[in-house]
């Protein structure tokens, strides 16, 4: 089973948050997309991974040059696993592959050096390849460009020198010959190819009779002559071709030798590439941590059933403890509206927790924040909060009818019901985040369903956090109960004064009202006694949002009648 299903992931805005964890190399990105979360039983491994992320965060925060060097070099690392595999099978490496290997080693050594300088050598296992880099850098230029250097072979050096001298000689002789031709033919310039009009009989005749040019093409308008180089140049051209051929043969020998030597370290290189991917992913997580001012959580092992206190008996140790928890997605949205985000504290000592609160008090955001932080923690990613203590779980499930869409042939309630039915059957310990379950059906049955599901989850071994407006679940005595503080009566009165009910009009007005409401709303949780019926603040919210006076008055009169 997946750690998180697609719908839950989408509802919790996991893709948008994970987008912020961005490795620099292709191998790093591949690792990120394939990595599995830490599951219960692997707490020590997770702590070890977090330890590395913390160490990197400290260095990245204080050493800009480290950050620039390492991230630049990581961005230049390509996925050249195939070239390494090819080398191990003693196949001949092409020039571009040799370049890629040298380029990899160049940046690998830069990264390795930076890690050594900052005492981070234990983060990943980067074995040295200095000698292999030197092999590909015989001129000790310490740059990633590559060519088959003449230092690889004395024969190659001699052949190249000979070709260089020959080219010079040929150029000189050709130039001299052209100058001589120009002089003898009394031309103002001389070119290797000349096009002359048929009408220019004097020049045509001159070129025709000349030893320097030969007719190469003619048409009804023009004649084309090409320079006829002296015999000596033709002989040198033959020598030039032969030299080129010999250079190619010698270059092939050098490449074979280089391929063989690289092949001997092929498996080490494959390992090195994997280690670079690991480092890249670690750095991406550490940079994310720096960016969000994140922390490393305390990971504990959830009590086994045997040591767990009976449900309903207050436990002193937490099941989830998050101080100043931030929902990064919402925070970003609010910041784009120039609104301040209110971080929340969440302390649950019980496995089953029921949250009530007014509309717009942030219950859904709270559930999503918990889900996001559990997801990040299971991937050893720093958390957006001040302090956190949480356990590892086998899966995360988020239930809500507002965004579920996995079956278009089902109603929202039916989809929600089937999802939760599947989730409770999932083996292992899960985090069940249930947002106003059964709100899409008639209230009487919905309330019973909501309660039944929570009663069922009490028997399961996971953690459940449920937000509800129903009264019945809030009567479950074996669960812990919380309320989002929301809007106080005083604040409501102030708001009523700030936002005149007559001041209505369009989107801007609503936006303003939401902004003001957001400023007055207290999103923190407070513990409440069981049987404390959920607050009824819908009318209050409707008034603050500027809902038509006619509707408000009708609602008030209905409610009066009911009372």
């Amino acid at each position, binding site marked *: 089973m997946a750690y998180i299903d697609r719908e839950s992931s989408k509802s919790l805005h996991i893709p948008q948050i994970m987008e912020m964890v961005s490795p620099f190399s292709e191998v790093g990105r591949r690792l990120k997309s394939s990595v599995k979360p830490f599951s219960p039983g692997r707490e020590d491994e997770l702590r070890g991974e977090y330890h590395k992320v913390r160490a990197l965060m400290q260095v990245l925060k204080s050493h800009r040059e480290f950050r620039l060097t390492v991230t630049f070099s990581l961005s230049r690392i*390509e996925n050249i696993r195939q070239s390494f595999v090819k080398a191990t099978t003693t196949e001949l490496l*092409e020039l571009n592959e040799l370049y890629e290997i040298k380029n990899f080693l160049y940046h690998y050594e830069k990264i390795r050096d930076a890690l050594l300088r900052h005492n981070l050598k234990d983060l990943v296992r980067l074995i040295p390849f200095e000698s292999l880099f030197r092999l590909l850098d015989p001129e000790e230029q310490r740059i990633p460009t590559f*060519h088959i250097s003449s230092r690889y072979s004395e024969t190659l050096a001699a052949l190249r020198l000979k070709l260089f001298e020959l080219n010079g000689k040929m150029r000189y002789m050709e130039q001299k010959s052209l100058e001589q031709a120009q002089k003898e033919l009394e031309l*103002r*310039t001389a070119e290797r190819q000349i*096009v002359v009009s048929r*009408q220019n009989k004097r020049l045509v005749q001159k070129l025709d009779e000349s030893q320097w040019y030969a007719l190469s093409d003619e*048409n009804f308008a023009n004649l084309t002559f090409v320079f006829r180089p002296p015999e000596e140049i033709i002989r040198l051209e033959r020598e030039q071709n032969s030299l080129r051929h010999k250079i190619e043969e010698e270059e092939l020998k050098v490449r074979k030798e280089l391929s063989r030597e690289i092949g001997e370290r092929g498996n080490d290189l494959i390992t090195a590439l994997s280690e670079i991917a690991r480092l890249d992913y670690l750095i991406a997580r550490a940079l994310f941590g720096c960016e969000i001012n994140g922390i490393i959580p305390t990971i504990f092992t959830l009590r086994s059933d045997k040591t767990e206190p009976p449900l309903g008996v207050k436990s002193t140790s937490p099941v989830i403890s998050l101080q100043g928890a931030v929902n990064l997605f919402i925070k970003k949205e609010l910041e784009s509206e120039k609104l301040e985000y209110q971080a929340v504290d969440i302390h649950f000592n019980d496995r089953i927790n029921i949250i009530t609160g007014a509309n717009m008090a942030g219950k859904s955001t709270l559930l999503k924040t918990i889900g996001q932080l559990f997801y990040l923690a299971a991937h050893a990613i720093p958390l957006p909060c001040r302090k956190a203590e949480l356990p590892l779980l086998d899966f995360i499930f988020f239930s809500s009818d507002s965004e579920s869409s996995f079956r278009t042939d089902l109603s929202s309630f039916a989809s929600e019901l089937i999802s939760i039915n599947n989730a409770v059957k999932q083996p292992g310990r899960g985090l069940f985040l249930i947002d106003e379950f059964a709100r899409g059906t008639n209230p009487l049955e919905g309330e019973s369903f909501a309660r039944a599901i929570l009663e069922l989850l009490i028997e399961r071994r996971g953690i459940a956090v449920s937000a509800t407006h129903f009264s019945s679940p809030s009567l479950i005595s074996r669960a812990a109960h919380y309320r989002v503080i929301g809007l106080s009566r005083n604040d409501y009165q102030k708001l009523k004064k700030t936002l005149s009910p007559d001041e209505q009009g369009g989107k801007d007005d609503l936006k303003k009202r939401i902004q003001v409401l957001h400023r007055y709303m207290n999103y923190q949780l407070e513990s409440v006694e069981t049987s404390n019926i959920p607050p009824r603040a819908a009318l209050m919210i409707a008034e603050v949002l500027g809902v038509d006076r006619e509707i408000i008055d009708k609602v008030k009169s209905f409610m009066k009648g009911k009372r």
Partner: protein
Amino acid sequence: MIRVNQQDRSVSDKERLLNTIGESGKRITVIVGLSKNAGKTTFLNWLLEHCKFTAKGVITTGLDGEDIDLLENVRKPKVCIPPGTIFTVRASEMQRLSGFLEVLEKSAYRAGGENIWLVRNDTGLEAEIVGPPSVAEQIETAGRILSHGAEHIFIDGSLDRKAIGASPLVDSLVITGSPVYGPLPALKKGYKGLYDLAKIEGASGQISSGVLEVLNEEDYIRILFGPLKKGLSDPQESPLRDGRSVALHASSSEWIRLPFKTLLGHEKEMLSLLRSKGKEPSLIFIPGSLTERSFQLLKGPIQEFPGLKIILKHPFHVKVADSSFRWLRQKNILLVLKRMEIAGLIVNSYAVNGNHIDCEHFRRSIRDEFSLPVVDVMEVSG
């Protein structure tokens, strides 16, 4: 018509062309052809041999390396690359020449389904050069080549890919033509079309450098109401970016940013806006092309508001009929952010379709018509 001594110009035009390209500060020259088989590669080879830069760079626009011209079934010349040149090749070509190349980097772009590589040769050789397909990628690649130490880059383009010539980073254009394009009168017209575009005045003499910089990145139409004054030090220039109407040059002038990129479909809004401000418009900036339909729309306001000028980003964005272009030029209405410099006109009398022209008549006719360097790389006189 300019009557010139043909013998003098055969030599001096080649020198003038090389001097223009080699002027200090110039980094990129693009060779464009009036048609296919206009002689671009032959000219590029000549240029690479004769220009004085010690470290040259060469790229092409797209994959232009077919050995055979499929339409005309003629073998195309390869590029002869002098030692120490930085150029762009595919991996397959690099493998063929592996003993003679230094691999500088793998570019982020592809041509013909293969990665493009930046290489430098240590000996003269013939190679099939390639380039990325989009202008932005070509310019980025040119930048990388410069960063590896090239002094000047030659881009082997073609007229149908002339967008590269419209890049503000291109310093000079060289136009090559052959009778494949048409008979001599048509060829003259082809050269003249580009020659006239190069004569469009630059806007730098009329508006400040700050505004020029902003307009270079602007994608929406803008209108300047009020008198056109060159206020180089006006501190209120920068707010132009946010799209609000702000006074730019003086309290009596303001730029309006329109919410559309083209005039087409917005004729009425445009006209009512031009007449609504109570101030005369002095400039209209059009970020895209000035088409014949757009011109017909603007003709009325141009006549209504004497002194109104139209600014385009580059002369290649003028896409009006010949008669309209003449009208605009006579009235001196057009300005461009980046002037187009034509370094020279290249004539090639050979036509792959058999419609050859007498080479001397061709050279003379073009020289009589244009004061620019006119070069036939196969010309000698004597």
